[in-house]
C-alpha cells in the first residue's frame, strides 16, 4: 500500500512542473527585490509611519519585516492561495482525480499528502521571500543592528534570528489561509474560483477590521494575526499576540481543513 509520504513526494514533484508554482515563488523573490530597488531609487528619504520604516536605510534586516507587514494585505494570501486553491481543483479540471482514486490509494491519504504539499509550498514561499529580503536588504542598507519596537538596539545576528522566528510566527495565519484555500478548492472544484475566493476572504476579513463599530473584533480577525510576529520585536518579548494568533488561526484553519476533508472524503467523483 502506498503511504502519505508517497503522495506527498509526488505532489511536490508535480508542483515542480506547474506554472503557478513559479508564479508564486517568483513573486516571493521579486517583491523584496523590487522593494529594495524602490528604497534605493526613492527621491524622498522621509520615514513612513509604519514599524521599522525609519530603519530601512540603516539596516537591511528591517526589509524582511516591512515586507511581512505589507505582504499581509494581499501578497502572501495570494501566493498561498495559488497552490492551496488549485491543488484539488486542478485534479477536477484535468479529470485526473478519478485516475488516482482508482489506484490503491485511500482518499484520506491523498488528502493528507496534498495538504502537506500545499503547506510545504507556502512555507518555502515565506522563507524564500524572507531570505531574499534579508540578502537584498543587506546589500542595500548593510547587515546592521536593528532597533526593536521597544527602542532597544538588537545586534545584527540576534535581529537575523528574530527575523526567522518572525517568519515562523507568520506561518500561523498563512496555515489558516492554506486551509481556507483547500476548503474552497474541494468545494468549488474550480481553480480560479478557489484562488480568487481565498484572496477575497482574506481581504474581506481585513475590511471587517476597519469598519466602524467593529473594533472589538480586531484581535480575533485573521488579518490581525499577520502582525503577531511584532511581539518578538519587543523587549521583553510580548507573547500575548503570538499565543492569541495560535488559537485564533486554529479557529479559522481547523474547521476549514476539517470541512475540506469531509467534502473530499464523501464527494462523488462525477467529473474529475
Amino acid at each position: 500500500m502506498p503511504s502519505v509520504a508517497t503522495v506527498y513526494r509526488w505532489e511536490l514533484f508535480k508542483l515542480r512542473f506547474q506554472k503557478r508554482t513559479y508564479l508564486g515563488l517568483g513573486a516571493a523573490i521579486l517583491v523584496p527585490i523590487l522593494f529594495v530597488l524602490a528604497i534605493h531609487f526613492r527621491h524622498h528619504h522621509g520615514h513612513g509611519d509604519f514599524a521599522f520604516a525609519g530603519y530601512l536605510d540603516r539596516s537591511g534586516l528591517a526589509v524582511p519585516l516591512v515586507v511581512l507587514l505589507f505582504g499581509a494585505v494581499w501578497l502572501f494570501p495570494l501566493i498561498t492561495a495559488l497552490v492551496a486553491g488549485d491543488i484539488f481543483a486542478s485534479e477536477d479540471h484535468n479529470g485526473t482525480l478519478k485516475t488516482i482514486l482508482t489506484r490503491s490509494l485511500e482518499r484520506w491519504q491523498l488528502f493528507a499528502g496534498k495538504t502537506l504539499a500545499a503547506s510545504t509550498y507556502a512555507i518555502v514561499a515565506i522563507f524564500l521571500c524572507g531570505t531574499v529580503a534579508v540578502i537584498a536588504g543587506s546589500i542595500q542598507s548593510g547587515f546592521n543592528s536593528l532597533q526593536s519596537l521597544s527602542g532597544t538596539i538588537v545586534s545584527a545576528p540576534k535581529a537575523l534570528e528574530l527575523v526567522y522566528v518572525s517568519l515562523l510566527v507568520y506561518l500561523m495565519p498563512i496555515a489558516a489561509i492554506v486551509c481556507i484555500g483547500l476548503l474552497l478548492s474541494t468545494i468549488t472544484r474550480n481553480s480560479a474560483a478557489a484562488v480568487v475566493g481565498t484572496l477575497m476572504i482574506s481581504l474581506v476579513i481585513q475590511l471587517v477590521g476597519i469598519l466602524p463599530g467593529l473594533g472589538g473584533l480586531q484581535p480575533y480577525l485573521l488579518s490581525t494575526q499577520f502582525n503577531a510576529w511584532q511581539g518578538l520585536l519587543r523587549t521583553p518579548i510580548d507573547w500575548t499576540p503570538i499565543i492569541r494568533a495560535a488559537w485564533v488561526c486554529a479557529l479559522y484553519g481547523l474547521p476549514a481543513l476539517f470541512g475540506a476533508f469531509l467534502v473530499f472524503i464523501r464527494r462523488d467523483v462525477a467529473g474529475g
Partner: protein
Amino acid sequence: MEVRGLVKRYGELTAVDGVDLTVNAGDVYGYLGPNGAGKTTSLRMMLGLIRPSAGTVRLFGRDPMESVTALQGVAGFVEAPTFYPYLNARRNLELLAAYDGHDAKRKIAAALDTVELSDRAKDRVGTYSHGMRQRLGIAAALLRDPKLLLLDEPATGLDPAGMRDMRLLVRRLADQGMTVLLSSHLLTEVEDVCNRVAIVRSGRIVYEGEIATLKRGAGTSYRLETTDDTLALRICGAQPGVTDARLNEHGRITLTADEPAVTVLSQALVEAGALIKALAPETVTLEDLFFSFTEGDGVAPGPRPPEPAHAT
C-alpha cells in the same frame, strides 16, 4: 463482479435504475447503450468513484465504497483516460505505479510495450493524440496486473485503424485470461470482442446474456419479393410462426420466422397466387437487436423472444 439493484439518482433524475448484472471470470462483457443511458454512471459506481443511491456492487466479493482494497485485481478507466498533461507518459505511469505500491513500477516498460508507446514514453502526455491517451490508459490499467478490466468506451473517438487496434488489444488481453467489461455504443466493437452483453436503456437493463443467445432468440429475418406483395403481406400476417412482416423503406417485405414456418409460408404464397421472386434470409446483427431494444417500445423482434430482460 456482481451488481444488484444499482440505483443512482440526481434529484429528480434517475440515471441508473435498478441495474443487475454479473460478470463471470473469463467473460468479455459488453455494456451497451446509447449516450446518456447510464453506462458511465454505472461504471463510476463499480469503481467506487460515486456512491450509489441504492444497491450494491461486489468486486471479487468486496464493496468498492468501503475501501480501496476492493479494487485489488481491478483496473480500468471511466470516460477518456486522464493523465497529468505536463508530465511525460513514463512519469505518469511511475506516479500511478507509486500509488499502486508493490512492484507496479517494474511493469511500466512491459505495459508501454504492450500498447506500443515505448518510443513516445518521454513525450509529455499533453502532446498525445486521443488514441495514444486511450492506449496509455490501458497501459496504466495493466500496471495493476488486473484480473478484471473495466473500460468505458475505449474505442470512442478513435480513427478506424485506432478502433481496430483497440479491439485487437482488448481481444489479446482477454485471450490472456483477463475478464473484461467494456461499455460502448459501438456495436461492431462489442460484437467483435464480447461474448456477453447487457443492453441498457434509460438507466435500466433491458437484456442481459450471451450475444449468441440473443441472436438465436431473435429468430431469422427474411426478405421476400413476390408477384403480389399486398397479398403476400396479408398471408404473412395470418401465417403461424411468422412475425413482424412489414414493408421496409425500400418497398420490400421483411419478416421474421423460423425455418419450418418459412417452408409453410412459401407453400401458402404459391397456393394463393403470390409467386415468389425471392425469399432470402438476412442475418440479424447486434445492431438490429440493439435498436430494437433501445428505440420504440424496446421489444426485441422475433418469434422466440430472448430470455427475459433483467430489468428491475
